[in-house]
């Protein structure tokens, strides 16, 4: 099974090759070929990810580090002693990411094959998608921060390309799309500054960027504990450890497999543990396991104590440094010592501060990529891209990169309490604010976009309270149900457009026209903010000859209503996704959200952490918002009566679109069971017999050092469910009628005088964009304009045109007339005349007859001979 990990580089290679083919031969390929190439490349990555999964399960979850030979030494600066290896890390965290990224990504590829049908840059779109996938996989599998950053930037570029994919739409929409892409890119640049600073600080402090070195065990305490558990087969009082032991005892593999696995990556020398480990189960294990507890019976290392400081990755080094006492030092392994003191330029500080700084900068980076306050503004606008892009980027993959980075760096966050508090606040506030903004939107995708921001806020808050496994769990469930929702919304939009075209083709002027106008007017009513960045679908181009000038917006929920009868599959799956998002038991969203809330509650009650209280309060409110806006959306879109004639002609989508919806729907229901909390009681429906308890957390513990298992809290579960149900009930009460909107297509909340300011505030997206416009963009433009004026008026008009030009002309005039023409030319002409005169005289001597030359030569020879022999003659 060891060899299975060696195919890991293919996971990047396949989508790269797919992208390459679609780039180079794209124009020559038909849609079918492009779609097949792109989808097969994506599907292959999923199967490789499955292979990685089976590798890990077959190797007792010990990570593999793969060095693709060709890329060895891709970044090497000998003079700076900098060498970053190109290593792919296959561990439980990265495989978790791999699995859902490739799975959702594959489904989105298939979906896009149907959705993008007829687009003129069809193959280019698939090339971008594949490239995006390749970079995302680099990001996830890299074993060092720099590889992660390569992927990080790569997905940034691809998201730029994809959001602005329809940059050439007519009537200014292309400009809007391009602006949305630019906005995403620039907001991410701000975040990248944070990532880069974090990278620089990490490298300066630890001298490397590797997460873990190949011989290192990522979570030694956990691993050691497992070995001892297996050795002793002893029951544990500690519930946490006990369950763990049960789990692994149940697998029945025993110690020998474990030991062999470790042998693959470490020396077979007997480990000498330096000191007693303070792990909880150590004493009991010692009693039973006796002599075997310190070094593995096979002589394999069970922890990292034999490794010197320099042989550890940055996290291992950080752990060691942070555990040092004041003034203590540690041998690096080459004889030099390292202590807690870190010197950065002229600034000397403690390792605690540095780690906090790194975490803070990472938070900034994560805020950019994962759309947190204050950098979240790009994400709603990014809905300008095609819907599969929205699903791929915003649901499944790119936005999770920030959370992934934070979870991967959990060591830093674990030890940086103040920063964790900031993280919690940012995550919680983002969750709440985005949820609030979502409920005032009319655009179906925009609601989902704010929902995504809100859910990412949940994950970030989870990182803030130290629930790293819960963050990943929520990321995973969210990837499924949010992809489902996005694809479902795409299906709706698709259908609306078809209905609209159908209407224009056949039913023009058939009575519904006034209604149409009404919708049109509503779309441009007083809340003018929602005219930005609509997903103006590419299919329009095929029908441009219709020249319809009514601005029918297929994404505007005010034109929908009653679609459940027209598209039943979309409706059912959409409701599943919405319910999962709202956290309704027993769907996946319930489990992941509940674990975060339970962790927050435990952090607040048991640990007394401030961040726990903050997170609990903000996230409960956000959960209410979530359920409310999803209810509003479902009822506005699918229930009641159609508010536009187009609804009557909406067809169900093609199978390429519905099949992914169904698959995602199934997963959205069941994926939550992979991480059932401890003590779920009846809530688990007995499914723990199938999935086991907190399987995902146990799995993640092999790579996430500070992961911990979530326990089921009846109180929190009931409260959260109650909040969700209340929000749904409220939503149905408000939006449940045949037509919840009034004759002017205004929202009931807007109609209600008491809620109108709130709704306006939400609809205007809390005026974030306006604030940024005033605070940053206008001053920036003013400065740019000023500098342009300086450049033109001063440098161009005055300096270049007056000073330099005139001065140059003057000097040139002086040089040309008296100097060049008079002096130099005169001299040359004089010499010429002189030579001509002399040669006229001398040429007379040249008769051309050989004999004359010969006699002249002879005269010379005789003269020389005479002169030479003169001394002899005289002597």
């Amino acid at each position, binding site marked *: 099974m060891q060899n299975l990990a060696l195919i890991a580089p293919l996971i990047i290679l396949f989508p790269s090759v797919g992208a390459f083919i679609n780039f180079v031969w794209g124009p020559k390929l038909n849609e079918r070929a492009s779609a097949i190439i792109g989808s097969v490349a994506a599907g292959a990555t999923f199967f490789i990810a499955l292979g990685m999964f089976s590798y890990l399960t077959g190797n007792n979850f010990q990570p593999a580090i793969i060095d693709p030979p060709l890329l060895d030494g891709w970044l090497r600066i000998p003079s700076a002693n900098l060498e970053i290896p190109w290593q792919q890390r296959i561990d439980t965290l990265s495989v978790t990411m791999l699995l859902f990224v490739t799975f959702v990504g594959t489904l989105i590829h298939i979906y896009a094959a149907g959705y993008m049908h007829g687009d003129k840059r069809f193959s280019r779109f698939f090339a971008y998608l594949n490239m995006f996938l390749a970079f995302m996989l680099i990001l996830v599998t890299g074993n060092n921060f720099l590889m992660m950053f390569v992927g990080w930037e790569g997905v940034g570029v691809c998201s730029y390309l994809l959001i602005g994919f329809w940059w050439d739409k007519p009537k200014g929409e292309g400009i809007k799309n391009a602006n949305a892409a630019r906005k995403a890119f620039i907001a991410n640049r701000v975040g990248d500054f944070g990532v880069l600073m974090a990278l620089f600080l990490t490298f300066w402090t630890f001298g490397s960027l590797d997460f873990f070195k190949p011989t290192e065990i990522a979570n030694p305490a956990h691993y050691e504990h497992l070995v001892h558990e297996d050795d002793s087969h002893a029951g544990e009082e500690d519930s946490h450890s006990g369950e763990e032991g049960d789990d692994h005892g149940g697998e029945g593999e025993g110690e020998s497999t474990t030991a062999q696995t470790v042998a693959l990556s470490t020396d077979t020398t007997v480990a000498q543990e330096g000191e007693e480990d303070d792990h909880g189960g150590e004493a009991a294990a010692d009693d039973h396991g006796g002599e075997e507890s310190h070094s593995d019976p096979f002589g394999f290392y069970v922890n990292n104590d034999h490794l010197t400081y320099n042989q550890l990755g940055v996290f291992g080094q950080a752990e060691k440094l942070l555990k040092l006492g004041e003034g203590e030092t540690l041998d690096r392994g080459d004889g030099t010592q390292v202590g807690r003191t870190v010197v950065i330029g002229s600034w000397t500080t403690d390792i605690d501060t540095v780690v906090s700084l790194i975490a803070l900068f990472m938070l900034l980076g994560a805020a950019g990529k994962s759309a947190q306050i204050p950098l979240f503004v790009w994400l709603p606008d990014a809905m300008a891209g095609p819907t599969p892009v929205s699903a791929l980027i915003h649901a499944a993959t790119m936005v999770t990169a920030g959370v992934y980075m934070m979870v991967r760096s959990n060591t830093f966050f674990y030890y940086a309490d103040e920063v964790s508090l900031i993280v919690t606040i940012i995550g919680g506030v983002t969750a709440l604010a985005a949820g609030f903004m979502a409920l005032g939107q009319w655009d179906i995708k925009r609601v989902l976009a704010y929902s995504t921001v809100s859910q990412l806020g949940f994950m970030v808050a989870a990182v803030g309270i130290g629930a790293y496994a819960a963050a990943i769990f929520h990321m995973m469930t969210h990837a499924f149900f949010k992809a489902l929702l996005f694809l479902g919304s795409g299906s709706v939009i698709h259908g609306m457009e078809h209905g609209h075209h159908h209407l224009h083709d056949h039913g023009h002027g058939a009575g519904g026209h006034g209604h149409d106008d009404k919708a049109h007017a509503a779309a441009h009513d007083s809340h003018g903010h929602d005219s930005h960045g609509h997903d103006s679908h590419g299919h329009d181009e095929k029908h441009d000859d219709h020249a319809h000038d009514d601005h029918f917006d297929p994404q505007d929920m005010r034109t929908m209503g009653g679609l459940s009868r027209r598209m039943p599959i979309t409706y059912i799956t959409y409701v599943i996704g919405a319910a999962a998002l709202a956290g309704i038991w027993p769907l996946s969203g319930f489990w992941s959200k509940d674990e975060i809330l339970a962790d927050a509650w435990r952090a607040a009650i048991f640990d007394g952490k401030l961040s726990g209280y903050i997170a609990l309060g903000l996230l409960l409110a956000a959960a209410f918002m979530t359920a409310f806006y999803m209810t509003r959306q479902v009822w506005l879109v699918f229930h009641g009566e159609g508010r536009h004639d187009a609804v009557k002609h909406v067809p169900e989508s093609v199978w390429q679109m519905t099949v992914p919806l169904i698959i995602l729907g199934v997963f959205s229901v069941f994926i939550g069971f992979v991480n059932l909390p401890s003590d779920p009681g009846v809530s688990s429906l007995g499914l723990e017999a199938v999935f086991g308890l907190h399987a995902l957390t146990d799995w993640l513990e092999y790579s996430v050092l500070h992961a911990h298992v979530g326990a089921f809290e009846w109180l929190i579960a009931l409260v959260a469910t109650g909040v969700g149900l209340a929000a749904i009930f409220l939503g149905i009460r408000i939006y449940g009628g045949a037509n919840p909107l009034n004759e002017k297509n205004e929202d009931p909340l807007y109609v209600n005088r008491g809620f109108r300011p709130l709704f306006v505030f939400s609809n205007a997206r809390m005026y974030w964009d306006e604030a940024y416009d005033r605070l940053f963009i206008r001053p920036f433009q003013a400065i740019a304009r000023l500098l342009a004026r300086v450049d033109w008026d001063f440098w161009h008009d005055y300096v270049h045109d007056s000073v330099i030009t005139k001065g140059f002309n003057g000097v040139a005039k002086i040089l040309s007339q008296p100097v060049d023409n008079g002096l130099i030319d005169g001299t040359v002409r004089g010499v010429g005349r002189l030579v001509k005169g002399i040669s006229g005289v*001398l040429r007379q001597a040249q008769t*051309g007859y050989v004999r004359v030359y010969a006699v002249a030569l002879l005269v010379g020879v005789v003269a020389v001979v005479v002169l030479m022999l003169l001394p002899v003659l005289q002597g």
Partner: protein
Amino acid sequence: MVPTEAYVILSMVLFAMGTLGVLLRRNAIIVFMSVELMLNASNLALVAFSRQWQGVDGQLFTFFVMTVAAAEVAVGLALIVAIFRTKQSINIDELHLMEG
């Protein structure tokens, strides 16, 4: 043993005769042959001195002179042939294209 002086005098006389041939004859081929005579005269002196000094270098020089003379003859005769083709004469007094 014949003294070196005798060889040198002989070589000198031959050289002078060659010189006269170059200066006074008008047939280009004869002129050329006179040049060869001069070269031979100098070769004779070289070999004579080589014996005098018991060094083989003089003979080597002679060897090189012979080689160069062969090359020179080849080129010179080719020139004469070419000139004859155009002017139908090898009288060097009729050739003064190089007049300044």
